[in-house]
């Protein structure tokens, strides 16, 4: 089957071989769960429990606080021991609810299964998604219920499941497609119902051929759901590039997928939605790929939210000795971590261990033009970085700096090792 692609991007070793054949392993709950309030884009929820409260796994501990917000649940049975600042994967400490685990066990206190979801009103499904605290689990953390509501005046025709998983090392979506195929399909159908989409697509990069087979068998009976095979290229999984490849439509600058009649959700988000609607299960755990170099047992682990990184690394055979880089997320856009006590949050898709890479950075721009050739958005990263460096707000805006999605392709190829992404982030902040 011919694969489709988009312009720009980079072809890199995907290092999936370390974990793509490792079945998902469920780890026991941690002795303490550290649940940061900020686990979604938009405004963080407000705590509704106090220190000393006894909570069940699945119980609401923080309620939504605005139009773009989500719900936070206890991920373990136990007692709230603190509400205080704690390390956060984004790098800065932020307030977290700490629960001392009382009992292990897979039970949860949740909501009623929506048995009749196929006939349910879309707003009811969206309400359930909000109640379950589901956010984009591919890394963005955008509250899922907001995406399921098309903006006024726009219709969503196609719901797309983003199974590109273009970041190297990560294999969460791949394993879910293999091991929970029916759940992914169910999640897509629920999404289609909630958004009013007549058509569904599961878009898979061609390095997941086994998952594609599974999917096609599961979709045999479905008339409105198709698979699309994608070229293996980073960042194929970026929303705009995905839609360009799948539907041959460009989301307008400053616009949303809804502007081209589409809606995109990550594979794990789809399984979480299926769990919430079919089983009444709120979002209290997720699958994380632990991979990189120097690990004895890299793998894919299902852990309760709030599990510290140290437990995941132990399960993978412990980090190697010596200095290293620990990345939360993928190596292209992930955040380097400094504290093993940092917890897994809703959008933590992976933990990647890399050796240090000392090199001279931010040498002068050679004007070689490599960054232009790889930019999937057609920008001129070297000029954007220069404008940002000089504080030239108008120049930056004129060069469409706001359209940068910070994929990192430019910095990857830059021979002068310039921190292009960071300069562009600086430029975006100039606008404020």
């Amino acid at each position, binding site marked *: 089957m011919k694969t489709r692609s988009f312009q720009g991007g980079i072809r890199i070793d995907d290092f999936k071989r370390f974990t793509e054949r490792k079945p998902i392993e469920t780890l026991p709950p941690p002795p303490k769960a550290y649940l940061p309030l900020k686990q979604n884009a938009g405004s963080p929820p407000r705590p509704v429990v106090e220190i000393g409260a006894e909570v069940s796994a699945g119980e609401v501990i923080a309620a939504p606080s605005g139009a773009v917000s989500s719900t936070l649940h206890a991920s373990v049975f136990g007692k709230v021991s603190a509400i205080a600042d704690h390390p956060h994967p984004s790098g800065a400490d932020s307030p977290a609810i700490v629960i001392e685990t009382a009992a292990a066990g897979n039970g949860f206190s949740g909501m009623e299964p929506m048995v009749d979801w196929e006939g349910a009103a879309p707003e009811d499904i969206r309400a359930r998604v909000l109640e379950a605290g589901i956010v984009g689990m591919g890394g963005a953390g955008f509250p899922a219920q907001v995406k399921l509501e098309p903006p006024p005046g726009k219709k969503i025709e196609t719901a797309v499941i983003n199974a590109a998983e273009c970041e190297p090392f990560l294999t969460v979506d791949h394993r879910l497609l293999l091991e929970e195929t029916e759940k992914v399909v169910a999640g897509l159908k629920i999404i289609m119902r909630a958004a009013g989409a007549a058509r569904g697509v599961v878009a898979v990069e061609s390095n997941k051929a086994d998952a594609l087979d599974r999917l096609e068998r599961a979709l045999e009976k479905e008339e409105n759901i198709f698979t699309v095979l994608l070229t293996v290229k980073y960042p194929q999984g970026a929303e705009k590039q995905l839609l360009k490849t799948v539907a041959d439509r460009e*989301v307008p600058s400053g616009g949303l997928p809804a502007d081209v009649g589409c809606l995109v959700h990550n594979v794990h988000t789809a399984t979480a939605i299926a769990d919430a609607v079919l089983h009444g299960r709120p979002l209290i755990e997720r699958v994380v790929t632990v991979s990189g170099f120097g690990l004895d047992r890299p793998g894919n682990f299902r852990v309760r939210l709030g599990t510290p990184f140290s437990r995941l690394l132990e399960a993978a055979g412990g980090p190697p000795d010596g200095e290293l880089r620990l990345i939360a997320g993928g190596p292209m856009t992930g955040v380097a*971590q400094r504290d*093993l006590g940092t917890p897994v949050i809703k959008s933590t898709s992976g933990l990647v261990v890399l050796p*240090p890479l000392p090199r001279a950075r931010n040498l*002068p721009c050679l004007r070689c033009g490599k960054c232009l050739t790889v930019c999937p958005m057609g920008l001129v990263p070297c000029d954007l970085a220069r404008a940002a460096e000089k504080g030239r707000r108008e120049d930056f805006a004129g060069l*469409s700096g706001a359209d940068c999605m910070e994929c990192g392709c430019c910095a990857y190829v830059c021979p002068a090792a310039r921190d292009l992404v960071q300069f562009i982030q600086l430029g975006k902040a100039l606008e404020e």
Partner: protein
Amino acid sequence: MKGSLPTKKKFTVSPAPHFFSGRTIPKVMWTVAAALLPALAASVIFFGWRAVRLQAAAVAAAVVTEAVISRLRRRPLTIGDGSAVVTGLLLAFNLPPDVPAWLAAAGAVFAIAVVKQAFGGLGFNIFNPALGGRLFVAHSWLSRMTTFTPPLTAETAGLDAMTYATPLGAAREALVERIPSLWNMFIGNTGGCIGETSALAILLGGMVLLSMGYISWRIPAAYLGSVALLTWLLPVGEGAVALSPLEHLFSGGLMLGAVFMATDMVTTPVSGKGMLAFGLGCGTITAVFRLYGGNPEGVSYSILIMNAFTPLIDRFTRPRVFGTLKKGLWPRKA
């Protein structure tokens, strides 16, 4: 690390992306230097010891000048990145075989100190340093720079010791018997500057750079293509003999200029379209100079003139931004 994990460990916290292509400035520059080796070999074959001493003088002067200036600017030494060596070699390639070594050194000092460092150093210079150095030397010591002796292998080309031993010079003076055969022009068995005569050697190096993705095909293709087209279509100026497009491509500094100097990343446009426009401009100017100009050469001038236009070309040849429509020729205000 087995057993219980401490929560604090030595982590390097650096910004994303955490992966890197492996392409560095030294890698690029030294690879270009390596790609110049065939031309260097050709220069020694055809011009012998004279070529070697000029290259040594130019490279040494370039490296020392850059080191001294780095110290004066209180900056870390940059000579390890290979760019000074490349500039020295390219400058030497642009010199006739009999100029004194001090002239080569003077050109290199000017190229590095004025054309490159005074503008801000690597990445900030507007003009090609080697060509700027050559121009300085050509206009300061005019007669030395226009005196050419034939190559060591001249007998095989049927030439004897004459002052107008370059193919272009001969064509300009309509001295048909002194125009070498196309084959000799291709391999480099002609009079001329020590590194520019052998189109074959230059092309070999160019192919290497192209296959490794270090230069784009666009500038050489547009440059050579437009020279070929224009020299084919346009009549030659009075009193001169017309050369065929291929003869034009293989003579003078065109091959060296199109493959190694017009492709210098710092001084040329950044986008693909811009590179084509740049090559086209160079080709047009070179063709017009060669056909109608006072001087039979035109490559150095054309590249330097186009270098000046690079920022403007960059402004008008930006790629289309994803999710937008191209709005005519004039870019938005920026």
